[in-house]
């Protein structure tokens, strides 16, 4: 499989990465070289093998349902690029009407 410039731009949008035209071209070259190697995995005959997602078999690990102190609000926002009154400040997402 070989990635086109269009494919690279599509994946970059999915990954939320703004790439320059130069980066798109370099990425296309690099990814195609890497995929050229890892495509060999498709030649392995693995039809009936069960997929392995995790090294150890643990299922539904739970703790007692007891309320314990959680992350304090001031700590949660202390690394925020912009915060106000203990909340994260972001560009407006919804509307544009008079709800503000």
């Amino acid at each position, binding site marked *: 499989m070989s990635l086109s410039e269009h494919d690279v731009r599509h994946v970059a949008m999915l990954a939320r990465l703004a790439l320059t035209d130069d980066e798109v071209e370099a990425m296309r070259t690099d990814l195609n070289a890497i995929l050229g190697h890892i495509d060999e*995995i498709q030649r392995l005959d693995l039809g009936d093998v069960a*997929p392995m997602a995790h090294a*150890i078999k643990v299922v539904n690990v739970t703790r007692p349902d007891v309320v314990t102190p959680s992350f304090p609000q001031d700590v949660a926002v202390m*690394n925020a*690029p912009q915060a106000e009154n203990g909340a994260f400040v972001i560009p*407006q997402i919804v509307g544009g009407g008079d709800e503000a």
Partner: protein
Amino acid sequence: MSELNLASATATEIRDAIAGKELSAVEVAVAMLARIEEIEPAVHAFNQVTPDLALSAAEKIDALVADGAELPPLAGVPAAFKDNMNLVGTHTTCSSRILAGFESPYDCTAVARLLAAGVLPLGKCNMDEFAFGSSGESSATGTAKNPWDLGRVPGGSSAGSAAAVAAGMATVTLGSDTGGSIRQPGALTGTVALKPTYGRVSRYGCVAFASSLDQIGPFSRTVEDSARVLAAICGKDPHDATSAERPSEDFVAATQSADVAGMRVGIVRDLLELEGVTPEVRQSVLDAAARFEAMGATVGEVDLPTSKHGLSAYYIIGPAEASSNLARFDGIRYGHRAENPTDVLDLYMRSRAEGFGAEAKRRIMLGTYALSAGYYDAYYGQAQKARTVIASEFSAAFERFDVLLTPTSPQVAWKFGEKADPLTMYLADIYTIPVNLAGNCAISVPCGFSAENNGVRLPIGLHIIGDYFAEAKVFRAAAAIERDLALDVRSPLVSA
């Protein structure tokens, strides 16, 4: 002050000297901080040095000594942590611009446990950005150097953790290993480097790369010190649901007995014959196997035919998980935010573009592609199936053998810039990756040196692989070969 050379002393020696009042923990901290000031500009193993934290920890140890109280197992031992592990009072940057200045909001469990064991926290170690790399060169904070030859890479991604120990700037350090990021720099710097079994050590507070592969482990000068650190950091943690309900064991006793009579040692023949492994590295593994036989072990051969496809499986699974994990760096809650965004999509796209370096972008793109509609079965699904086969081949091998031997790295430390092409760099982890995919444990222990070239010789690492939770066996084998070879593993930066 005692005669102990702190730049080459072991954790055991330092703790004993403090317990015996030959020197105080504050003297250790002051001496190590002075050494870092002298050596660090040439090596750049640290992203941050923390004199206040080291000195206050040292004062607590000295108060215990003054009171005649029981000392914790690693009292006064100089330590440092890869910069993807949170420690309150330090930045945690993953050597990335996107996390520049990030203040640790809580402590990583492994770090907290090591501090509880009495170590002196000297700082946070340089690394490949988000642990994406095998040379340290993808760090956004400048590149760590190999103390054996400052023109060569220390390996990666735990580049600074390895370099700090090899340069005598820390006695033990913690790294993280997703595809070899502890063991490979361990081999390239002549240090002892352990990747514990997946789940043996909590991952809580270590910034996630690939959650099904990541594991924290130690760098040290001796196998015994490695065992002491593992004993301190292992065990169930309620904050990490994947940490194992597995009691600690007497790992230190395993290193002290170092008895391999009757141990079944397997040379992984097909991996040793891979293209790309240098003759001196291959020979040093065969020589080590002969030493095991001379010590009474039974040595045989085994093939792991699917492991050579591990690299492909890893470069699908690792980036796939990384692309998901790194989605959280979006400029909203923490990290770099682009100036004057027009809307929230623009904020995401430019914050990430400005914050991530080239290799991080490459892995995010690769993982996003492998998980995208139409390609999931061909890549991610197939890689997960290969992972099953790789793990089952290990299980079959461990029915015949107690430990398996391969090189840790196909070659010794290379020069900066030598592997500019990403795929060539990825091949550096061909021996370490299958162990992360299966989830079992392995150690790298120095087993020889390259031929001297321009007055420089470079360390070679032996990769000793064990079954799930077989760290005690791995330690026993590693301590036996360490004792038998009795190599002088002090780098040129550490005087006699």
